[in-house]
């Protein structure tokens, strides 16, 4: 079982089992403190914005294409920003720590 550490908008930490082989969004949208993910992972809504913990950033491939374009226009964007529907969760990422970004 691979774990995800999620920091909610109030700063509280939650440890949950991450669904492997699919995007992080599919785990995070089930959580009350999670993401809205309105477009369901089509990279069209930017309502699945998260910040990846800096120590993990280098372990993930960099955002590209549409994801990058959507991120660039978010006011709450940081260098660690990702759209979690574009980040695949794998057992190798056990312990991955992410924070939910504020609603735009």
């Amino acid at each position: 079982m691979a774990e995800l550490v999620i920091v909610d908008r109030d700063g509280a930490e939650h440890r949950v089992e991450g669904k492997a082989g699919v995007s992080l969004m599919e785990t995070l949208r089930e959580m009350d403190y999670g993401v809205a993910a309105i477009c369901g992972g089509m990279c069209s809504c930017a309502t699945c914005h998260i910040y990846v913990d800096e120590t993990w950033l280098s372990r993930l491939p960099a955002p590209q294409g549409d994801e990058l374009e959507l991120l660039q226009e978010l006011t709450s964007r940081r260098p660690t920003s990702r759209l979690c529907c574009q980040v695949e969760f794998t057992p190798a990422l056990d312990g991955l720590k992410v924070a939910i970004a504020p609603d735009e």
Partner: protein
Amino acid sequence: MEQGVIVIGAGQAASTAVETLRKEGFTGEITLVGDEPELPYSRPPLSKKFLAGELAEERLLLKAQSFYDSHQVRLRLGTRATQLSTQTRTVTLDTGETLNYSKLLLCTGSSPRRVSVPGHDLQGIHYLRSKSDVARLAHELTANRRIVIVGAGYIGLEVAATCRQLGLQVDVLEMAERIMNRVVASPVSDFFAQEHAKAGVNIHTRHSLAGFLADPQGRVCAVQTTDGAQWPADLVLVGVGGLPNTELAARAGLTIDNGVAVDLYCQTSDPDVYAAGDCANQFSTHYQRRLRLESVDNAFEQAKTAAQNLLGKSLAHDKIPWFWSDQYDLKLLISGINMDFDQGVLRGDPSTRSFTYCYLRGNELLAVDCINQAKDYMASKRLIADRTSMDLMRLADISVPLREATAQG
């Protein structure tokens, strides 16, 4: 008997509503009544990846069963609400049971508009709204068969793209003079027509449906148009728009106006009944007109508003609506409503397959269609909401970021 909130219809809006109710701290009973046998699922993939067989069924679910269990949502799936009485505040189900509510939320969605031309009930004629529609349609989609699609709106064109991917021969019949006629301006519609033509879809505009012809087994074998032409078909998909599911509300005496009429707070003409999603018709203060929208965004935002308001808040919904459609590798993102535009500005060159079409009234940006242009799409939202005056010269120059193409500079 303990009372609580009943949500009718278990789709996109309903899923957001139950989530919001619990997030807002509501601890009373929540009952979700839906006539499909399924947990709420996402419909957009039904004409795209799921139809193409590229998405596993369980990934359509908006929330897993465990969500409803842990949030104590009573699920009454495969069950239809047949009657609503706002006097007694009761809902009757097709099982014969009667449930009491203190607040009710209608999320009954919409249904495909059915055609009634001769031969309309032949075998092999399909509509697309639900997973069960896909179950019937998908096994018919084998390479080299001929599909005739009636209607060149989003669903028809998305299915056309998926069918080409699966190797079918595709004809699309459209009554208007161009495709996506009601929703986008001609440069955008022309661009999509060219892309479909390149992919091998035969689009026939200005062709109105007259009827369907049957083979000796009683299965559709051709579509006839009003000019007398016949279009051979192994199967047919009809995609000519949707109608709001208002039957229950209408019989209960709620005000109907192309959908269940709701105010800015998503409240219907009865103070204990709210409505959200495809079934609802709401006034938009931004656009100063009533709108009934069929989009995931609209279902999400209205349901969230309705759920908060039925718990006692008073939040008006007036966000700028948005929509997306995927055809081939083209991502169309639309924000705003273009209905009252008086001029259009093209940003970029369609032949690069990445451009934006801007709809304005005077210099005010009303809406944008962004084709493989996520950046413009994101930037447009605030500009539209703020009724920004644009500088038309700069707007037409795609090298100027949209955000900077404003009249103030």
